[in-house]
């Protein structure tokens, strides 16, 4: 799993990579969690708040963005950061997962949205999965 943060004029550009699709989605959740609360997913992966998320989309790119959007919305409603993702089902069009998170007093960053801009989930030459994700800040 690899997560890098790259410059963008106004927003946050995050590059993620995983050995398979599941790891890519997990990298997305961890990378986003660490933006919401710096370093939180490095300290405490599990937490007492659990949610089940079910997403259907036309392709893996939309699936990832919609999946992260759903986690983001849940984060704001629950005032929590979700670092742990356990997949019950993950195909190119469906994601069913249990997310686990911890409550936070305050977020470090307010992400307005996970955008589709520049997102392109694809396999690299070495068989890994990767994409860019732009967060509207």
């Amino acid at each position: 799993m690899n997560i890098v943060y790259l410059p963008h004029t106004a927003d946050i550009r995050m590059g993620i990579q995983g050995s398979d699709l599941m790891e890519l989605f997990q990298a997305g959740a961890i990378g986003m969690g660490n933006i919401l609360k710096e370093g939180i997913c490095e300290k405490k992966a599990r937490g007492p708040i659990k949610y089940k998320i079910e997403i259907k989309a036309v392709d893996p790119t939309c699936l990832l963005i919609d999946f992260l959007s759903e986690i983001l919305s849940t984060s704001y409603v629950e005032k929590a950061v979700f670092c742990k993702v356990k997949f019950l089902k993950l195909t190119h069009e469906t994601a069913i997962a249990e997310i686990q998170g911890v409550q936070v007093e305050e977020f470090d960053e307010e992400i307005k949205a996970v955008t589709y801009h520049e997102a392109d989930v694809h396999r690299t030459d070495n068989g890994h999965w990767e994409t860019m994700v732009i967060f509207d800040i």
Partner: protein
Amino acid sequence: MIISKSDITRIEAYLWEIPKSFSPKMRVPARILASETLLDNIMEDRSLVQLVNVASLPGIQGASLVMPDVHEGYGFPIGGVAATVYPEGAISPGGIGYDINCGVRLLTSQQKITDIRDRLESLSKELYAQIPSGMGKGGQIKLSLQEIDEVLHNGAEWAVQKGYGVNDDLAFMESNGRLHNADASMVSEMAKKRGADQLGTIGSGNHFVEVDYVEEVFDETIAKSYGLSKNQVVVLIHTGSRGLGHQVATDYIRQIMAAMPTYDIEVPDRELACVPFNSQEGQNYFKAMGAAANYAWCNREIISWEVRRAWKNIFGPTIEPLKLMYDVAHNIAKIEEHSIEGKRIKVIVHRKGATRAFGPGFGELPEKYRNVGQPVIIPGSMGTCSYVLAGTDKSMQLTFGSCCHGAGRRLSRTAAKKQVNAPVLKEQLKEKGIFVEAGSFKGIAEEAPIAYKDVNRVVETVSDSGIAKKVVKLRPVAVVKG
């Protein structure tokens, strides 16, 4: 797609054009309102590629446009205007943005800067105490789902009815602080949950509440109409529809993207997802957008209530109350009539990071502004300056009655954090007489003046091009950020 300067033609002193022939997908030319120096800056990111993409939207009229403060966004550039033909032209949630009805308002006081100079530090701390960022436990008002529906329907009027606002303010807001096309039933439960505790909060990023004084008056007549005079203390508020608006945009971009094949629409970037305005999906979005816009007007009215409370706490209960000069949106879609190639056409004007700037005679304006044009409020960055301008007839000819919305970012947040030592900057600003209160040093670094273009240059461009008239220049003295 690579755009070089040779692809761009100067068609007026401050107006540049990428012709329709540049790309087979373009339905209209793409135009840039900028000085040559600003154009060179704009070409450093991908704003113009995004502008060319916008020119491919179904039903787009005249030209896709960007203002001199434009910077790269996601799909649409930030600082852009696109008008599509009513009723069958495209409506695109990305052309309004995630922060629906992000906007600015200006409150005026009866005090001069010399009256309050020695109270600025305590004033900034009191404002920070009264105005929650909403980054944690939320604001002071918790709404039930029924109350949220009332806010979404009534906009700023809700705040007035509940004692959080001032009735006289309503006449001084774009659309009087309420879009009548709003329909709360088109807003998801998730969006309503996100909005339940965020009224009266500013959020983070580039949102702020700022105390300024009028440093310079450029047009005495218009300034007098707007109730502005030299050295007068004023308050600027910049925020939008918070998590509720973000969720509405997220929900509808997803729905509209899924609906595009039904209408045989393809776009070069998913964030340009659009459907015909008169389709079921287009109408649903427009009603939900109206509801989120109403939430934003209500939010800014409640923040004004918090500012007014802080004002009384510092200056005493008998202090002359702050008055609303104007409140204007810069992320919104409106149905308007414009002259295009000699014909009056009804269009859906998308403004994303662009301010409406209607000239004299516009009926919606309060009577005292009607002869001088709509106030246009242009915030700079903390530590520099901001401006009040007046809309002109030329904006109706060149930019669908639109103007810039700020200085425009120049540096990424990462680059700003690398270059700025926030505690040192805070002290430097204090030495200059500017008191900054923020939730984090990170927020100060990201929003440092160095991260922005020179607002003076941006304002000179819009003023010299004739789309707005300079009225006054504001100098900040206290800044509150989330």
